[in-house]
């Protein structure tokens, strides 16, 4: 069985794996601890699940710790998370109490691991207070913010800032997300894991089985949007675009696939709006998939003729990256991180309305050769820029940079 590094060399290129080995050389033997708040579910856990063994193979003594809490803690951190993303969120004294107390309790357990560590990566707001709770810390501490914090609720940010300001550095996904802080703020775009269930190569039979499971006709074109049922993802706009395009492509099928909305009242409302908009159209499928339906999403993306991400507002948009990795051109909303990925006429099209999306659907579905060309470019672009190996390289570079924080040029060896 090949090592993880060998497996990544197969898909990402031997060059970058060699690069990782060389960058990791000065960090060999260092202890590095990642801390987040969940081992299962969510993009951060998915990435850490692969990142930690990869770092270990590079000779870094990496480990992953998870803080635990009760329902009031998760209610508080959900409010923090939403507030950081710009939603007005209640922030009550009981939330504060649950947040601080839960972190204090976790610090009791984690202190013997965190204080002697050479490097500590604390992911997202949930465990942010740990730094202040580890007074004997020896290493560098980095706060990794995975959230779109470009327009946070100011009150929430002021509260959180007191915990993150003392870190040695922070990492944001895009320059627009960075907030004023008294330490270096590295910019490292998110990535997808090409070996994970959501992105690994799938046999045709698996793709066909998923098509059959949802009653999709393989002989007709299918367009897909994968996203939560959220107004910012504009599912109703996608249905409008589909209708406009279907007048010219009668066989067109649409799949809107998203996560369950049981704990999200607004999500449920948006799902109902989409349902009402879809009406009785037998060629529209609204799929509520469980959070771990990675292989199903993978198959749907591979089965699609084109992928849409018609967001009105978007952080980075990893579903765009996933579709592009599968060689699909993406018709994306002209916003946020989608602009970094969808390059007009090269990897897809940026659109600002259902009409614009419909126009591009028609354009592409009539030009299979163009779809293949753009899809190949999209995949190459992701391979070069948005795979996990690139993110690891930038983490290693940032760590090396942090040890020489005031210098623009660091010569090793």
């Amino acid at each position: 069985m090949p090592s993880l590094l060998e497996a990544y060399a197969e898909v990402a290129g031997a060059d970058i794996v060699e690069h990782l080995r060389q960058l990791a050389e000065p960090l060999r033997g260092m202890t590095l601890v990642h801390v987040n708040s969940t081992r299962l579910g969510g993009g951060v856990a998915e990435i850490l699940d692969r990142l930690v063994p990869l770092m270990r193979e590079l000779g870094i003594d990496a480990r992953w710790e998870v803080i635990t809490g009760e329902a009031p803690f998760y209610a508080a951190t959900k409010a923090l998370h939403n507030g950081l993303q710009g939603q007005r969120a209640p922030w009550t004294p009981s939330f504060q109490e649950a947040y601080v107390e839960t972190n204090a309790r976790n610090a009791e357990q984690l202190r013997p691991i965190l204080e002697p560590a050479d490097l500590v990566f604390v992911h997202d707001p949930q465990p942010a207070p740990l730094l202040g709770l580890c007074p004997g810390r020896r290493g560098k501490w980095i706060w990794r913010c995975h959230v779109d914090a470009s327009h946070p609720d100011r009150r929430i940010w002021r509260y959180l800032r007191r915990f993150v300001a003392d870190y040695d550095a922070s990492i944001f996904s895009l320059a627009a997300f960075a907030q004023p802080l008294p330490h270096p703020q590295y910019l490292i775009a998110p990535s997808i894991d090409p070996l994970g269930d959501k992105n690994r190569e799938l046999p045709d039979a698996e793709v066909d089985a998923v098509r059959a499971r949802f009653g999709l006709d393989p002989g007709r074109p299918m367009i897909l949007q994968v996203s939560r049922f959220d107004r910012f993802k504009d599912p109703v706009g996608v249905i409008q675009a589909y209708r406009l395009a279907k007048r010219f492509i009668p066989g067109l099928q649409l799949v809107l696939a998203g996560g369950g909305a049981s704990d999200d009242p607004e999500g449920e409302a948006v799902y109902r709006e989409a349902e009402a908009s879809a009406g009785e159209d037998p060629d529209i499928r609204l799929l509520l998939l469980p959070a771990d339906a990675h292989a199903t999403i993978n198959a749907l993306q591979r089965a699609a003729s084109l992928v849409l991400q018609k967001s009105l507002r978007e952080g980075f948009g990893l579903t765009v990256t996933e579709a592009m990795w599968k060689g699909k051109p993406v018709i994306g909303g002209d916003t946020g991180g989608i602009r970094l990925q969808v390059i007009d006429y090269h990897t897809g099209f940026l659109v600002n309305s259902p009409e614009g999306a419909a126009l591009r659907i028609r354009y592409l579905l009539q030009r299979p050769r163009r779809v293949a060309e753009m899809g190949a470019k999209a995949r190459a672009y992701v391979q070069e820029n948005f795979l996990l190996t690139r993110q690891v390289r930038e983490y290693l570079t940032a760590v090396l940079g942090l040890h020489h924080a005031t210098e623009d040029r660091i010569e090793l060896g």
Partner: protein
Amino acid sequence: MSRGDDAPPGPLGSDPEPRPFALKDCALVALATGRRAQNLKELRDHLLTVSASSLYYHFWGGLLHPGFEERAYANDLAEWVHQSLHDTALAERLAVIDPSDFADLEAMREELLEAIEAHLDQASALAWVPVDRQFQFVRSQIVVFDTRRSVARPEDLTPMLATLSAGSVFYHFIDARQRLPEGSDDFRAWLAGWGEPYRPVRDRLGAIDPYFTTLHELRAEIAIVFAETLGGET
């Protein structure tokens, strides 16, 4: 090819033969500066004081950092002026500003300011962009490391060029322009120590324009120059 030689590339002056060429590699990491511009005047104001490492990032960093290789304009400033301010004339003026033409980044900064201020003098109104289209000034840190590979003679480089990493190409061919006098590169600087027989390869390397290309294309061009002038398989 030998391993473990720490000698820097470059001629040794009076030595009978230059020391081996030590292959280096590099990685770039971006840092937020917190500086943002929403119109041309703000862009100018930040350009007055932004660090040279930010200019470096916005002009050369695109080669090593996530980004699409086929851009309409070759630097981030011109791209923003075109994409967000929709001012094609100024975008074109900024796009022709090539860092290789300047002794250092400070001289290039002057040229940038001159172009923008001349444009502002003529402008009847100032275009503003939405908040999510602001120009974000970013700076970079470059980490340089030794690959522990080196070559004794120019001919030995030819077979290695095809496998050079993008970081090595960037360090020796792009970054060198900021380190060496007269915008040279590490290959030419080293070859200069080998005298006249190697002038043709130096001249041809000097004719490569790195500004509108990708590191992979650049590597291929450099490899062809070595193969055609010094022989050997790439």
